[in-house]
């Protein structure tokens, strides 16, 4: 990589991370080195867990949703016990959480938030988006959900009930979006391509045929 010598006046960190480590960088390094030194964890175990985290992406959640759309018996099992049904597709929960799957219907729209921090079904969807972790979303999703949804382009009619689930202890939530109209002929893989991360948080519907509404 070439040097960072171009002329501009906005401050930002160099990509190479050459600056001095911050407070939390130092704390993380200190705790990690202590755990390794005391033999409580090995460097290989930590690296391995990072690999596990990195391998979880919204594509796994999309696969689960698409299966629920085509297989009513699977959908019933998914709504009864989220992690058990995910296990059928080879997706394991590596943490001690439970998962409740919330089905969107023409009458009910579900939205997920964690007001206290950033609880999220990471084993199924990977890391949450940055906005999910920031205070504006966390505060506003529970106080003015319709406005927040409208800012995502999702206008919920008044006769549709909004259920905001605040995830704060050991339960994680997954929104099962409604299957878009006109998708009867699509394969399971094609259906999964319509299911985005944001649809599984509940801020947008599954992508309709022909792409998102502008």
């Amino acid at each position: 990589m070439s040097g960072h010598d171009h002329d501009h006046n906005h401050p930002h960190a160099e990509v190479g991370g050459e600056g001095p480590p911050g407070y939390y960088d130092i704390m993380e390094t200190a705790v990690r080195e202590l755990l390794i030194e005391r033999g409580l964890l090995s460097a290989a175990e930590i690296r391995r867990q990072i690999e596990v985290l990195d391998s979880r992406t919204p594509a796994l959640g999309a696969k689960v949703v698409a299966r629920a759309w085509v297989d009513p018996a699977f959908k019933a099992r998914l709504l009864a016990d989220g992690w058990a049904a995910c296990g059928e597709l080879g997706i394991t929960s590596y943490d001690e959480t439970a998962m409740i799957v919330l089905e969107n219907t023409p009458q009910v729209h579900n939205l997920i938030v964690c007001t206290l921090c950033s609880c999220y079904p990471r084993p199924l969807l990977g890391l949450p988006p940055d906005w999910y972790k920031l205070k504006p979303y966390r505060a506003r999703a529970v106080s003015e959900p319709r406005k927040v949804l409208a800012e995502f382009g999702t206008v919920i009619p008044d006769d549709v009930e909004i259920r905001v689930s605040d995830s704060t202890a050991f339960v994680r939530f997954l929104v099962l979006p409604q299957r878009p109209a006109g998708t009867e002929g699509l394969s399971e893989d094609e259906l999964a391509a319509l299911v985005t991360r944001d649809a599984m948080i509940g801020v947008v519907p599954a992508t309709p045929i022909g792409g998102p509404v502008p």
Partner: protein
Amino acid sequence: MSDDRFATVFPEGERAAFKAGDRVRIATRAPIGHYRVPTYLRGRAAVVEAVIEPAAVDNEAEGFGRDAGMKRHYYRVAVPMTEIWPDYAGSPRDGLYIEVFETWLEEAP
């Protein structure tokens, strides 16, 4: 087994104290420490939607590295948005759903 003399006695907390449909109130407490009940919901009236299985240890104790020993249930409770925010803009049927540990729920009068 129908003979009461040999009925199983359950440890305190093992069986759920509330059931779906029960009207409850989320406690108004402010202990020092780690717990999972957001301030904006304390004191609010709620309805139990579901008992969450299995029973779990008390995270207020667990957060300090103490095994609470005794397990109790979490409950998924529903609170109307209008109960939380008096000037809520939206359908009166809109609601907030959250899991609350048994020790934070009181029977509503």
